[in-house]
């Protein structure tokens, strides 16, 4: 029987360009005190915030295509002031042409559905070509010759499986990670996330729980069960039609991924020094039937997720994380931030109303406070010649720019971290368009390069050099690259 190649290794060939693995071709990452030859793994973290921004309180006044460093922090960016040197603001990019709504989807569905994968939603509803950057980067972050984490990627979300679907399949609003057309559901429960990371965790070499024979036997049992399941799928697969076989392949790959996880097949040794936190208490369970995420969940779960994201990276349980702070078209109520009813989507349809705009700013400030908490916690972890943040590429964006106009140009984008040493994340504000009024208009000028080229830039920095991604063409943006 021919050996099956993991779909993720196959993805490595996307673009058909020979991969050069930066620094990672050296041996396992080991942690030795006074490390001389420490080669830290690279990580990728992507955040989606819904409903755009109050752009007047987001975009700093000073900016240029080459980027300037003397920009003054706007209210939304003030939480990130201490991390200024390690962020890169990219303003004035234009995703309109590839994010247009169709019949379906609406603007939010179109913008959320394309966010991390670059493939237009309209006309591509069932395309098996839709694969997001987190999935594409997995083999780059976990090379065959180097160490490998227990979880190739963690897809997380705050809102839960509810909310408006904007005239298209709900998956385009609720999933950020896509693998060959299959939306990857988010983990919404921090307790469940903790269990996946730490329930069977025992700090020993490689983070294996199999320190004793009994634990080893249980792992062997589960492996035998899953081997039988895989065998059943293989027997079936040979008899199915191609479109059915795709479904079975999704299944088989998932079985395989679970085997890797169960065997604690992380070959990373950093977990030896990992210290789990206390399991989050099972608070109010996310009741998807209720349809609205209570603010107690939003407020309660957010810090839990921030802590677990940090720990997951620090303990090298994963090197790729996607996080949806809200689903597309999210109507999460931010009354706990503003003091009065603030359903996010409804409020983002401000129609120029000063009160709504003020509330939007407050929401954006809260969002960036969460970002700042995560980034500064990563920056506090020393790793060899730098910090964990230096070894991470952080990308944040939204489905639209201004909430009332639903425009997909002049998009809000924030990058942070080290960019794998190949991006110039150095405290600049790059702005590809020029604002003619002060304060800038709520809806900015069109033009500027396609927003999706930022994704191509991130990929190139990690050794995945290609000119196109889905509907995005033109290759990386030189202003972003070192």
């Amino acid at each position: 029987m021919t050996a099956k190649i993991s779909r993720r290794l196959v993805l490595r060939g996307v673009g058909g360009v020979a991969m050069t693995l930066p620094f990672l071709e050296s041996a396992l990452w080991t942690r030795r005190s006074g490390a001389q030859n420490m080669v830290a793994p690279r990580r990728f973290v992507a955040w989606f915030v819904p409903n755009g921004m109050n752009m007047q309180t987001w975009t700093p006044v000073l900016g240029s295509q080459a980027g300037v460093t003397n920009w003054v922090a706007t209210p939304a960016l003030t939480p990130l002031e201490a991390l200024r040197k390690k962020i890169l603001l990219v303003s004035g990019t234009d995703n309109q042409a590839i994010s247009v709504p169709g019949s379906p989807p609406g603007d939010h569905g179109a913008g959320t559905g394309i966010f991390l994968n670059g493939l237009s939603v309209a006309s591509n509803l069932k395309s098996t070509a839709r694969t997001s950057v987190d999935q594409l980067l997995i083999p780059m972050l976990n090379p065959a010759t180097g160490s490998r984490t227990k979880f190739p990627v963690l897809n997380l979300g705050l809102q839960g499986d509810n909310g408006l679907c904007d005239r298209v399949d709900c998956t385009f609003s609720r999933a950020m990670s896509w693998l060959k057309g299959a939306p990857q559901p988010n983990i919404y429960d921090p307790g469940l996330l903790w269990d996946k990371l730490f329930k069977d965790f025992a700090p020993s070499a490689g983070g294996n729980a199999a320190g004793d024979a009994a634990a080893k036997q249980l792992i062997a049992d589960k492996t035998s069960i899953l081997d039988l399941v895989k065998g059943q799928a293989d027997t079936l697969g040979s008899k199915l039609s191609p479109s059915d076989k795709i479904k079975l392949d999704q299944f088989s790959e998932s079985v395989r991924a679970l085997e890797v996880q169960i065997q604690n097949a992380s070959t990373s040794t950093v977990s030896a020094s990992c210290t789990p936190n206390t399991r989050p208490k099972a608070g109010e369970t996310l009741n998807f039937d209720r349809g609205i995420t209570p603010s107690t969940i939003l407020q309660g779960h957010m810090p839990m997720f921030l802590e677990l994201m940090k720990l997951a990276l620090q303990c090298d349980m994963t090197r790729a994380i996607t996080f949806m702070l809200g689903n597309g078209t999210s109507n999460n109520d931010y009354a706990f931030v503003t003091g009065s009813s603030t359903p996010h989507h409804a409020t983002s349809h401000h129609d120029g109303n000063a009160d709504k705009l003020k509330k939007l700013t407050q929401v954006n400030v809260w969002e960036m406070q969460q970002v700042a908490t995560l980034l500064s916690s990563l920056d506090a972890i020393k790793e060899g010649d730098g910090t964990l943040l230096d070894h991470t590429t952080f990308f944040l964006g939204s489905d639209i720019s201004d909430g009332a106009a639903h425009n997909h140009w002049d998009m809000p984008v924030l990058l942070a971290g080290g960019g794998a040493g190949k991006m110039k994340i150095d405290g600049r504000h790059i702005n590809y368009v020029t604002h003619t009024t002060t304060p800038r208009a709520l809806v900015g000028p069109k033009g500027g390069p396609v927003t999706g080229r930022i994704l191509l830039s991130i990929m190139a920095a990690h050794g995945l050099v290609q000119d196109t991604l889905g509907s995005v063409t033109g290759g990386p943006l030189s202003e972003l690259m070192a």
Partner: protein
Amino acid sequence: MGMPAPRGLWHAPPTTSLDSGRAVLARLNVPQYDNTVRDLLGTRTQASQAYMIPADEENELFDTNGQSLVYSDFRFAQMQQAAEGLVAELLARPAADPVRTRVISCTPTVPTMSTCLTSILTPFLAKANRRPVTADEVTPFVSLGIKIATAHDDPAPGLAGALQAVLLSPNFLFRIERSAVAGSTVPVPVNDYELATRLSYFIGSTMPDAQLTAAAAAGQLTSGASYEAQIDRLFADPVRSAAFVQDFGAHWLSLKDTALVAPDDKIFEGQYDDALRLSTPQETSLFFADLIAAPVPLSTLLTANYSFVNDSLAKHYGIPKPSGPGFQKVSFPSDSHRQGLLTQETFLAVTSLAARTSPVKRGVWVLENLLCDGTPAPPPGIPNLPDEGTGTVRQVLEQHRAQKFCASCHDLIDPLGLALENYDAIGKYRTLDNGNPIDSKTTTLEGAQLDGPIALANFVAKDPRLTWCLTKQVMTFAVGRSFEQADARAYVRGTAEQLGASPSWIGLIKAVAKSQAFLTARGE
């Protein structure tokens, strides 16, 4: 090689053109999985909640589309947790518990593993796979059990492991069908076991029960001998008919969206509470279930002069409280302004905004859910209508007519929603909007004059699109694929035309269950 001779229910090809669609292999969706393990293992646990199985991917209102349903690492990891937990729960039951002995018919010991496991797993695997199994199919599970038991020198983990493997096999987790000819586009009748499975998940969202399986074993389904009787029997089962109302109705009638209703606190202070929100979908569920059971013509959905209300809804509707506790069937007097689905809280509230009605959303809902005649999304960059203002919502919407470009769609949508303006954003009857009298006289695109909600309901009830649209909705749910393409729509229309003058819900359901789309499969 020619196609098999037509037999039983699949008579000569229908006079409508064959549609070119194909249902992709479907995994069990979340409600189907929950119900199936309930019936297979006797568990009272709602597995999807207990084991945090992610929600399903929806398509065209429903969650039964095999093309859209997906396996991901996360989903399978949770299925593995569920399999472990559910098997442990079963084995932890007392030895004499009939729920346990139904599955565990002998007590294995390490020396007797092979015979005992074989006698447990042969019927269990057949039930799980929803078809007879050969000895060769059972052997790997028995071998697995022996291997694990030997390693532990204990039969218990061996038995548990073998049962878990059955619950994780794709033969259980997917509704596998093998009758179609690989690579061929010619529809082939599915076999009795496959038909029993399709019917059982259509009506009840669960695995076939013993009687249905026996009918399949005797070939009585494809021969037609007891097919219709089985449909009647399944619907008579209250658990199954409730599941149909929930799993079909929750999506088609937007029952799930009632939880999203969040009226503006200031405007509707004191008029809307959690009791009302929770009562809302119950009214419509009971109403829909009654329509099926009665049976009455499909159009009664719109024309019914009765509904099911409790105290909370009665107060909200301004009608006398029901005579007993909970929900009661109440008739509306002849001069009532309430009639049928379109004046029920569910529809009125889920199609409104927080602060005001949205005739556009209401019109779109009627067009898409009842007439299957929706319009494209609005073009990008359209500003919202202003929230504040001194006029009525109708006056604000006049802007749609001012521009020809907008009018092309809005002349279709707005008249339907505007006819309902007497119901405010929380479904309460009113005669004034913003202090101005409401004018609910509208003219549809086809030229029909409507004067208020009852006229609208009667208009939809008589519309020829209603029957075929309801047929399309049921067929989409039952067959698990899209019928949006032109030839598929024509096929559905052909099926609907055969229903006769005023079909009932059961008549429609049976017609779908007897349709070529439901009875056959294609390899390609």
